[in-house]
C-alpha cells in the first residue's frame, strides 16, 4: 500500500516538475514535508544538498532518496520510476507526433520561435547553476576556462573536460 502511495505521489510530482530540478523544490517540500510528513524539514534540506551534488537529474535523485527512506531499495525504485513515468509517456507521444508533422507549416513556425525562447532559457539555466553552486570567484574562472576549451577543441570529449574540471575543483577549491 505504501509502495502504491509512493508511486502515485511521485507520478504527480513528475508531471508538475517543469523547468528542471530547482523548480520542484517548493512543490516537493510542500508535499513530502508539510502534507505527508514523510521527511523532516531538516532532512529535506540535507537531501537537496546531496541531490544537487551527485550525478543525475536533481528531481530524480530526490525521488530516489525519499523513496529509499520510506521503503528501502524497492521504495527508491518505485519512486524513481513514478517520477519518470508520465513525462516519458507524454514525451513519447509528442515525439511520435513531431516526427510525422515535421513538414507542417505551423509546426515549423512554432519550432523556429521556440528555438529562440530556448536560448533565453539556456541563459537562465547557466545563471541558476552559477548562482546556486558557486561559492566564490574561483569556479567562475574555471567555468570561463572550460568555455574557452570547449569552443576551441571541437574534437575533445566534453566528459573528459568535466573530469578535468572536477579534479581541478578537488585541488583548488
Amino acid at each position, binding site marked *: 500500500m505504501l509502495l502504491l502511495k509512493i508511486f502515485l505521489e511521485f507520478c504527480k510530482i513528475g508531471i508538475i516538475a517543469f*523547468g528542471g530540478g530547482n523548480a520542484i523544490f517548493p512543490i516537493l517540500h510542500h508535499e513530502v514535508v508539510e502534507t505527508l510528513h514523510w521527511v523532516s524539514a531538516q532532512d529535506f534540506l540535507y537531501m537537496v544538498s546531496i541531490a544537487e551534488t*551527485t550525478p543525475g537529474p*536533481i528531481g530524480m535523485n530526490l525521488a530516489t532518496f525519499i523513496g*529509499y527512506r520510506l521503503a528501502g531499495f524497492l521504495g527508491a525504485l518505485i519512486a524513481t520510476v513514478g517520477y*519518470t513515468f508520465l513525462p*516519458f509517456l507524454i514525451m513519447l507521444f509528442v515525439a511520435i507526433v513531431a516526427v510525422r508533422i515535421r513538414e507542417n507549416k505551423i509546426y515549423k513556425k512554432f519550432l523556429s520561435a521556440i528555438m529562440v525562447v530556448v536560448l533565453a532559457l*539556456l541563459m537562465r539555466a547557466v545563471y541558476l547553476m552559477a548562482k546556486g553552486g558557486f561559492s566564490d570567484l574561483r569556479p567562475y574562472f574555471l*567555468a570561463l576556462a*572550460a568555455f574557452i576549451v570547449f*569552443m576551441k577543441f571541437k574534437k575533445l570529449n566534453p566528459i573528459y573536460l568535466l573530469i578535468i574540471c572536477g579534479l581541478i575543483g578537488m585541488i583548488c577549491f
Partner: protein
Amino acid sequence: MAENKASLISVLKLFSIFFYVAIFTVGGGIAMVPVLERILVEKKKYLSEKEFTEVFSVAQILPGSLMINMATFTGYQIAGFWGAFLSCVAIMLPPITIITLISVFYTQFIQFTLMKKLMIGILAGVVGEVSGITLKMFKKTKFDTFKIILLLLSFALIFIFKVNPIYVVVIGALLGISLGRMEE
C-alpha cells in the same frame, strides 16, 4: 532480419550512450546537452544539428526532467519505442545506484567535503560547456526582426520580470505561430 539486427545494435548503443552520459550529469539535466550534442551529432552522426536543436527545444518545454525528455525523444527518433524506453532506463540507473549507496552510508557522506569540491568543479565545467552550446545555437540562428524582438522579450520576461518559464514558452509559441516565418 538484417534490419532487426541493426535496430538492436542501435538500441544497445543508445543505452550505453545515455548510461555513460547520465553518470556525468551534475547540476540537472542541462549538463548532458553539450555532451550529447558532441556524441550524437558530431561523432556518431545519429542526428543532424537541426534535429538535435529540435529535440532539445521540445524536450525543454515539456513537463518532466529535461533528461528524461531528451532521452525519450532522441531514443524514439533513432530507434523507435524500444530506443526511447531503454534510453530512459539507462539514465535512471546511475542515480538509483548512487543515491541508494549514499542512503546506505548516510552519515559518512556528510563529512565527505572532497566529494563536494569535485562536484563544484564539474559544475563549473558544465556552466562553461552549456555557455558554449548556447553561443553555438545563437550563431546558428538566422535572425530576422521578429526573432530579435522575441529574444529580447524572452530575456526581459525571464530575467527582469521573473516570469515562470512555462508562460514565456507559451507566449513565444503563440507569437511564432501568428507572426513568425518558417525556416527555409
